[in-house]
């Protein structure tokens, strides 16, 4: 049986349903597994690694003060034993657990927390994650290369660190759960210098045992890990350089346990059609939305009615069929698994006749000519063709500009280059499970700048103000009100229609018969492809 998890469930209900209770924490330890990847691991430095492949590997090598309950989007303390937030929401105090050590055996202290945060935000580190810490007091000057550290981060004693924010920010707990906030030992970083990404030392459930470039990366259990009875596996071997097709052959021959790059599109139907294999496929939601951006500063997409008409012209069901049903149609920026998703919102239903009518009323009875930018890797050009046909139906002639990823990104970052972009292959996947993460860079005014990611060049200052207000609503008691505020923000975005939300990709994780664990571990919203610390070997049971 194919197992269906987390689809179409509102975020909050979801977190409530999926507590840690479902994860079998008592499973016996031991055994090993093989995960395959096509690309070599870029780096295992938590301040630098920022692709979906090394993201969860780093999560297993390093710990931050905060993390998530496995398989859920619920925050929990990780290295912190206590986390308190002041009344006004600007002073966050963390107490470290006692007796936790790095892989090199040294005990972790509050100084390490300060060092790690300052390292990530130091401009010389060139961390892609530095911007997440903008709410910490003193960030602006430190990140500009002035002063001698983050003035907002104070070491109170060996085990206590107090972080002062320049504004209350409800997302700060999530930010401290990002890999970029991982605690690293200063002496190891300084010994390795720029090579720390190849010689990582953290405090996570696994430590690095071997790295042969282009061949394999091996993780080994960290015996002094701060959580009891974890990790489940003794060893994880990442076999590098295997095409997804070849990886699948290995798995079928019992020589691999998880194809890290997923099931190759060409073999998807074959795998799903074979009961022996589809039984080992776990389907789940993903914090992902694929969308078409309509450049609101370029005619004729500066006309809201034109944007709405385009929204009604796209046959999303057909696009989902093109990718063999590996997604669900979307009608709003947030994916269904994200807290704040509006379950009852209907969006712009597919109605080409009405779309054509609206287009005529907007002054384009004969349509117009435009360009659709797309990344040149399958299935994106095929999806672009479907969009092209849909647009043709209402009289819009879109020429497809199929380019390498970096070139599409470059075009999107210019105000007058790309009237429409299909986001496939570059679409937004949340950094952390909070609705605010789908706004700033891709829909807020701050992203509508040269080189930004707001490719619709949509800037609504009223919404920006409301977004800032929502993020200032800290504390448990405000959580629901805050989610409601965010839900309304995204519905108001849709009223302006800067995007055509097309689909939310689903995850289909295939495993061998030898690996066990709760289904939620295989579609964990934060760990892709699986939660390495918690899955177990069936042979060891």
């Amino acid at each position: 049986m194919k197992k269906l998890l987390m689809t179409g469930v509102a975020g909050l209900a979801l977190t409530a349903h999926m507590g840690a209770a479902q994860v079998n924490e008592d499973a016996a330890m031991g055994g090993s597994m093989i995960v395959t990847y096509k690309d070599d691991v870029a780096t295992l430095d938590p301040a630098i690694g920022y692709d979906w492949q090394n993201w969860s590997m780093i999560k297993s090598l390093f710990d931050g003060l905060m993390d998530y309950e496995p398989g859920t989007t619920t925050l929990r303390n990780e290295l912190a034993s206590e986390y308190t937030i002041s009344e006004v929401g600007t002073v966050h105090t963390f107490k470290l657990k006692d007796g936790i050590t790095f892989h090199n055996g040294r005990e972790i202290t509050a100084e390490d927390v300060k060092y790690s945060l300052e390292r990530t935000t130091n401009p010389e580190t060139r961390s892609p994650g530095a911007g997440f810490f903008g709410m910490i007091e003193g960030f602006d000057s430190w990140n500009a290369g002035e002063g001698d550290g983050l003035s907002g981060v104070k070491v109170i004693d060996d085990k206590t660190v107090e972080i002062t924010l320049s504004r209350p920010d409800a997302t700060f707990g999530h930010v401290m759960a990002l890999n970029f906030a991982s605690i690293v030992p200063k002496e190891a970083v300084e010994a390795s210098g720029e090579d720390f990404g190849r010689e990582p030392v953290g405090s996570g459930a696994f430590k690095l045992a071997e790295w042969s470039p282009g061949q394999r990366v091996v993780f080994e259990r960290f015996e002094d890990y701060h959580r009891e009875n974890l990790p489940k596996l003794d060893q994880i071997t990442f076999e590098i350089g295997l095409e997804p097709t070849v990886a699948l052959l290995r798995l079928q021959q019992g020589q691999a346990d998880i194809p890290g790059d997923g099931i190759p599109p060409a073999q998807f139907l074959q795998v799903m059609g074979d009961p022996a294999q589809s039984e080992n496929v776990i389907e789940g939601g993903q914090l992902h939305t694929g969308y078409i951006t309509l450049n609101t500063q370029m005619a004729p997409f500066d006309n809201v009615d034109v944007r709405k008409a385009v929204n009604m012209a796209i046959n999303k069901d057909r696009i989902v069929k093109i990718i063999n049903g590996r997604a669900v149609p979307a009608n709003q920026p947030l994916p269904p698994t994200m807290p704040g998703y509006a379950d009852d919102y209907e969006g712009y239903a597919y109605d080409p006749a009405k779309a054509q009518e609206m287009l005529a009323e907007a002054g384009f009875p004969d349509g117009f000519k435009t360009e659709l930018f797309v990344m040149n890797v399958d299935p994106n050009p095929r999806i672009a063709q479907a969009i092209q046909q849909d647009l043709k139906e209402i009289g819009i002639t879109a020429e497809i500009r199929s380019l390498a990823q970096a070139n599409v990104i470059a075009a999107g970052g210019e105000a007058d280059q790309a009237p429409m972009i299909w986001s496939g292959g570059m679409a937004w996947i949340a950094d952390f499970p909070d609705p605010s993460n789908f706004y700033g860079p891709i829909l807020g005014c701050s992203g509508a700048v040269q080189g930004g990611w707001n490719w619709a060049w949509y800037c609504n200052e009223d919404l920006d103000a409301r977004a800032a207000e929502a993020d200032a609503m800290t504390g448990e008691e405000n959580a629901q009100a805050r989610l409601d505020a965010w839900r309304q923000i995204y519905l108001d975005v849709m009223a302006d229609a800067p995007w055509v939300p097309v689909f939310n990709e689903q995850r289909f994780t295939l495993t061998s018969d030898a690996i066990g664990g709760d289904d939620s571990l295989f579609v964990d919203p934060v760990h892709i492809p699986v939660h390495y610390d918690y899955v177990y070997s069936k042979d060891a049971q």
Partner: protein
Amino acid sequence: MQAYLVRRLLESALILLGITLVTFILLYLVPADPARQIAGRSATAETVQNIRDQLGLNDPFFVQYWRYLTSLLQGDMGRSYLQRAEVSELIAARLPASLLLMVAAIVTELILGLTIGIVAALRRNRPADHGLMIFSFVSISAPQFVIGILLLYVFAVQLGWFPIGGYGTFAHIVLPAITLGFLGAGWYSRMMRSSMIDVLGQDFVRTAHAKGLGKARIVLRHVIPNAILPIIAMIGIDIGLFMSGIVVVESVFGWPGIGQLAWQAIQRVDIPVIMGVTMVSATAIVLGNLLADLVAPLIDPRIKTK
């Protein structure tokens, strides 16, 4: 000979210099901004600017090029933008695997190509010849990706004779070497066939027949050694062909060579790595050609160095 060698070496150095310039210009003109790739999507414009400053990407083209060239001459290829490791180390870690695969592929294509060419020439215009030439035609035109997957499926998955991709033992190298050597085998078989036919028609072969020598002796002692000469000189030129094939073959078989490294670097606009791999492959091709030109007169005195 010495003057010739010096001239050729100087020429090679100039060609390599030209390649650095052309590659650098191309990478400079690519609209993608490496600083944005490094900065990530949450970065502010200032952060991106700051990274550009640190990497010296804001300097004028010739300043950047001069800086690269002077470090290159001191043996410093810089650090990867994304992996942060020394480019020379990244390449050094992968070059042995690529060279090994290349040598294995040359052996494969020679054995396959020469054998087929010889048999075809001896059976000229008979069914065996036609069959073998169709085979060589297919091997020249078939995409290496398809051949690789096909070989994997039949010999590794179905028959289980070889491992399914990877690196380490002799068994690992067989399928990738055949895949890579397959294309060359097609070329060599055609060349060997026509070269053999040429030699078979020569007067000295007729003389040998007239002397009453056995057919096997004529072919082995007189025809093949003469026919093979022009082929040997081709091997150096092959290296260029391999450099392009190696990207595909390494990715199918998970072979940890520089092709794999190049592919990933291009995807991520990792300019120092792209430059480094380009320089190493260009050097290999230039040296290969030079070697071919130097070896040719040694094995065939009729060819003179000019």
